[in-house]
């Protein structure tokens, strides 16, 4: 256990030193703050609670941004260290390879969690201070937004490691990571939407849609955040009604999406010779 923590601590220290932590926190805070104050202008005082509006806009933003940040910090983790030669030295120490991967995972996850918590927390705190009337339910939804965003980050960190363990060059890992991001964040949903439009409900049943949505971690994330009260004011509300997925199933899907690539990354890395 201590070996994993030592590696995690080093990863965090490096993140702080090369300003990754600072950059991602500032980016998320800036975007969250601008969404909070610019986004609340059009709603005026009608209907939806102020924090609910922020949750909808923040989760739509996180779906793009969090996977991108996660892949950026993770795609380099294995192949980059091999290329720089630091992995060779690290593995000559009394360290098992799964400990290396898990240690890095913990460290990267801590960086992501910190950035999300601080970045989004700043926006919520600002909203509370400027005197919005925020119900307890909205706070719960906000907490779930932060939690699920970190989990979404974990999914893409794990996917990034798998790519990193598989390829022989850093640049290849970068290219594949961007491809995965494009497919899971943009292409998949467009294709799914096209399918639903063309199909007109003839063959794609609610059950099938459920499966199709769980097959993409970003959709599971969207449904977690846009399915509840906040969902009523988002475009996803309609889909969320048809797709009858319990929050527990969505959570399980995200956890599986993090655990399976991580396990695969460990397996691939363990078999690799250097």
């Amino acid at each position, binding site marked *: 256990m*201590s*070996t994993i923590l*030592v*590696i995690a601590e*080093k990863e965090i*220290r*490096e993140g702080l*030193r*090369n300003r990754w932590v600072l950059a991602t926190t500032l980016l998320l805070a800036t975007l969250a703050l601008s969404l909070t104050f610019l986004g609340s202008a059009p709603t005026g005082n009608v209907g939806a609670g102020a924090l609910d509006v922020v949750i909808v806009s923040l989760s739509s933003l996180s779906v793009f941004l969090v996977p991108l940040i996660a892949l950026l910090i993770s795609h380099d983790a294995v192949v980059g260290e091999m290329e*720089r*030669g*630091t992995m*060779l*030295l*690290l*593995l*000559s*120490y*009394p*360290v*098992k390879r799964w400990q290396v991967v898990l240690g890095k995972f913990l460290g990267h996850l801590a960086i992501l969690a910190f950035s999300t918590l601080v970045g989004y927390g700043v926006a919520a705190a600002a909203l509370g201070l400027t005197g919005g009337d925020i119900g307890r339910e909205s706070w719960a939804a906000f907490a779930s937004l932060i939690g699920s965003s970190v989990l979404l980050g974990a999914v893409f960190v794990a996917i990034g490691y798998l790519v990193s363990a598989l390829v022989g060059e850093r640049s290849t890992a970068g290219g594949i990571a961007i491809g995965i991001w494009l497919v899971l964040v943009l292409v998949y949903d467009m294709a799914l939407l096209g399918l639903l439009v063309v199909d007109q409900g003839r063959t794609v049943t609610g059950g099938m849609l459920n499966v199709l949505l769980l097959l993409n971690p970003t959709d599971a994330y969207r449904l977690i955040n846009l399915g509840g009260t906040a969902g009523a004011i988002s475009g996803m509300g309609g889909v969320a009604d048809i797709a009858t997925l319990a929050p527990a199933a969505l959570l399980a899907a995200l956890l599986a999406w993090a655990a399976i690539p991580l396990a695969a990354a460990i397996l691939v890395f363990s078999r690799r*010779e*250097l």
Partner: protein
Amino acid sequence: MTTTIELSGVSKSFGAIEAVKDVSFSLEAGEIVALVGHNGAGKTTLIKMMLGLLRPTAGAVRVLGEDPATGSAEVRTRLGYLPENVSFNPALTGTETLRFYAALKRAGRDQIPGLLDRVGLAAAANRRVRTYSKGMRQRLGLAQALLGQPKVLLLDEPTTGLDPASRRDFYRFLDELRDTGSTILLSSHALSELEGRADRVVIVGRGVKIADGTLDELRRIARLPTRIRVKLAEGEERRLDGGRDWRAVNGHMLEIDAAPEDKVELLRAAMRAEIADLDVTPPTLDELYAHFQDIEREAGR
């Protein structure tokens, strides 16, 4: 003598390429052994197998009594390794880097200032590795290899990037370590600097062990000639007796390659003449190396 590293019949191939072929040797506690060979001879592959980073395709490797690839990680706490091109995260300082590696090896932090001082990095300890020169990085690499007083040190081309002064310090350092009973294996292709520093030399070429022994033993086996060069005094005839064919070199110098058993006789012959200067050059390590390489090449044909 206790054997710390033992290789028996070790082979390693990467696809169709046989990087190491049936190599056997063992290393004892308290000796400095040089693993010598040209680039691509299989030195690094051998070291990686001793570290358990590569598994041999055939044969067995034992390090401190265990198989490094499958045995307990404990063995590695008593192992120090300096890779050929050592690199560190440039964002961390020298001290931070060593603290990280010390924690992995479960070695005390208190030895870090001493180690940094010993490799001459005390003044740069709190500077980021980014600002280090190549020689400084190499010395930081040496410091990390020495964490936790290793019983076995594997150094892959340790003196590349070191200036002559730090090179001398480095070898003095190795002598001290050897005297505490550590086994030190260093790979090199700069043979000339190993003279008088390595207790034993293992020569590898194209993945095969070519020779193994002390430098004197190898010289005896190789029977390489000693070169004697004489500068004759002014007016002396350009001829020396002894019935041998001395070669004339630019005007008033004579030269001969003497087999070990003729050496003394030839020197006597030279002393009988009026000479201004005398040079005796024993076969260098490089010649020795070339000799064993040639033998190997002929055998391979």
